[in-house]
């Protein structure tokens, strides 16, 4: 792994930790869901750097795609029920 890739991996890891922290601490739930999706998205880029495109695809499709959508879906349902 050359120096540029290494530096970018370190940056990505730091960004992941930052996004995870935001996901825990932020008050608005929609913000937290987006931050959690961002962790998965950055993880999939990191997998790509580590020469594992298959894992990267799974992470992008399930971790950042399906789960984020599912969280939003459930959030909308909960808010819809609260209003009654």
């Amino acid at each position, binding site marked *: 792994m050359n120096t540029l890739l290494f530096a970018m991996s370190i940056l990505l890891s730091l960004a992941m930790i930052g996004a995870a922290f935001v996901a825990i601490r932020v008050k608005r739930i929609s913000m937290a869901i987006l931050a959690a999706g961002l962790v998965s998205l950055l993880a999939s880029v990191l997998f790509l750097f580590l020469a594992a495109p*298959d894992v990267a695809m799974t992470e992008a499709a399930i971790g950042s795609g399906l789960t984020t959508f599912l969280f939003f*879906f459930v959030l909308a349902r909960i808010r819809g029920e609260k209003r009654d």
Partner: protein
Amino acid sequence: MIKRLSVSLILASLGLIFVALLLGYSPDEELNVTGRYYAEHTAEDIGAANIVTAIIVTYRGLDTLGEVTVLFLTASIVGLVLARQSKNTPTIQAEPAGELLNIGSRLLVPLILILGAYVFINGHLTPGGGFQGGAIIASATLLMLLTDPMRRFSHRLIAIIESIAGLFFVTIGLLGIFLAGGFLDNRFMPIGEFGSLFSAGAIPIIYSLIGLKVGAEFSSMLVSLSEAEDS
């Protein structure tokens, strides 16, 4: 106070374990025995350009069958648990989705479906395969549900797709026993030209079936979740 302290203590010890692992890590200079075998023999034995797919579908095909079975059980249990609650009629009227979501989903859903099919049909050539393609297809279902939460999907159609895919998957696996080397052996069909779409024996067919099955299972879970009205 004591809760905070114990949480930070656990986090610190976890970090210590990771640091110890990282310090003791040195990357391998060459592949180990198993890895070298797969890297050297996949191209001529299996004929798949993507070694990961060759391992998942052929060398470790039985594990994949197990994974698909676990997913099937999960989908069935979700359906079983949520089916009881869905009998009463829905009372909440969800707000209509915005213009952007309506038009956007009409444009995007076919494209997402095509991308999913592309990913699992080309599983033996490019990264990705049945599981990834299935998840992409399920995300199209989810997008439709987000646009219109009251939309109803045919459980029957999903169940038929799922069962037929599973049945053919096992049948092809059994054909491998009788016509080639063993269960899920892909070589009872011609291996073909390395790197072309119709190559690698039965792998494209098996992976397409897995893709349909996984997509149907995820979709059935999502549909059950969306139909579980006020519990």
